[in-house]
């Protein structure tokens, strides 16, 4: 119901961007001054700015108010789930991890490579792993309400701390694939992530101001969703906006993009739960 009109303006606005980036390559954002994709590939937007900095003032105020921020309802639910005993051994997250304050800083280091399996895990993936392999409880599905709640609760413990992902060693190939995908033009609009979030941040796209495309506020509460959603849900919106095929939840493509996004945002503070339009 709410999503339909949005899709229409996005289509129109995207055509405008696709047209203007050719003339405008490099824009005035300093990120890719040469206008070539090769230089943009290595660049972080400068100065780095939170997603909330591009949101309307009313939403910034909503996010900043620890009580009014609707994302805090997910944090509150996560706090309950953290204590809830599950599985054959009746263990809760707290049985192994104690107070959730022990998670302070954890969210700043994801996605990361799981030592045992060599797989790239984001924070949700780690929580799902703990839930099914360690707690031995019924697995949590991607984007399910309990997973969003636990993810919001764990991420909230790191609010205000700078992102510091590792892209070295075993993480390197994942990072490189994410970086390349970020530059790759996709969809009927034939646009890359970089064309919007490196070359055109600060510009208007329909009712939205294009941000630098950081994941620091996720999971966010989005008014359009009337609920909370993960970074992957947001990336699916971006892909659908350019009429590209959306990756399924949990797909490797998502995780690699997330690692690249974390590297791009290194040093920015986590601001989950964010509030977006």
């Amino acid at each position, binding site marked *: *119901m709410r999503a339909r009109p949005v899709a229409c303006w996005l289509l129109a606005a995207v055509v405008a961007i696709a047209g203007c980036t050719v003339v405008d390559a490099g824009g005035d954002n300093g990120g890719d001054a040469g206008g070539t994709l090769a230089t943009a590939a290595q660049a972080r937007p400068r100065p780095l700015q939170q997603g909330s900095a591009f949101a309307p003032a009313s939403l910034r105020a909503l996010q900043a108010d620890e009580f*009014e921020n*609707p994302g805090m*309802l997910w944090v*509150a*639910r996560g706090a309950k789930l953290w204590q809830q005993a599950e599985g054959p051994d009746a263990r809760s997250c707290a049985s192994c991890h104690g107070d959730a304050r022990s998670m302070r800083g954890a969210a700043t280091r994801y996605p990361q490579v799981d030592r045992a399996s060599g797989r790239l895990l984001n924070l949700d993936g780690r929580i799902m792993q703990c839930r099914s392999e360690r707690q031995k409880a019924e697995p949590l599905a991607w984007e399910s309400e309990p997973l969003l709640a636990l993810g919001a609760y764990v991420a909230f413990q790191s609010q205000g701390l700078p992102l510091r992902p590792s892209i070295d060693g075993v993480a390197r190939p994942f990072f490189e694939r994410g970086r390349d995908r970020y530059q790759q033009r996709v969809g009927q609009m034939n646009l890359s992530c970089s064309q919007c979030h490196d070359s055109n941040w600060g510009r208007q796209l329909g009712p939205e101001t294009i941000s630098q495309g950081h994941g620091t506020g996720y999971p966010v509460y989005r008014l359009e969703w*009337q*609920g909370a959603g993960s970074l992957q849900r947001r990336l699916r919106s971006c892909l659908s906006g350019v009429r590209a095929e959306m990756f399924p939840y949990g797909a490797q493509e998502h995780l690699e993009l997330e690692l690249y996004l974390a590297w791009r945002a290194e040093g920015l503070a986590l601001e989950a739960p964010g509030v977006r339009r």
Partner: protein
Amino acid sequence: MVVRVRIPDIVRRGQPFDVRIAIQHVMETGYRLDHSGRTIARNVIHTLVARYDGVEVYRAELGSGIAANPYLQFWITAPASGVLELSWVDDAGVAGSERVPVTVRD
């Protein structure tokens, strides 16, 4: 149903103070259709009542125009220490309530 309620740390006898409440709820409008074109039944929290030591001090009637996860703020006064009880019910008949002890100071 997750609920968060907040009152000020210090409540003074006879002085108005604000009560803030946020409830996690879909607030389904009744105007939307599902994938097969059927109307999704309305399910909103239609009534929320606040009682102070059993006496009704606030009542809200909500409808389809209220966004998901409603947030309400209202002002009341307390003559003495007591218990603020908030209760609400949605179209599906699911009810919730929350009790908040209030300590009044002079």
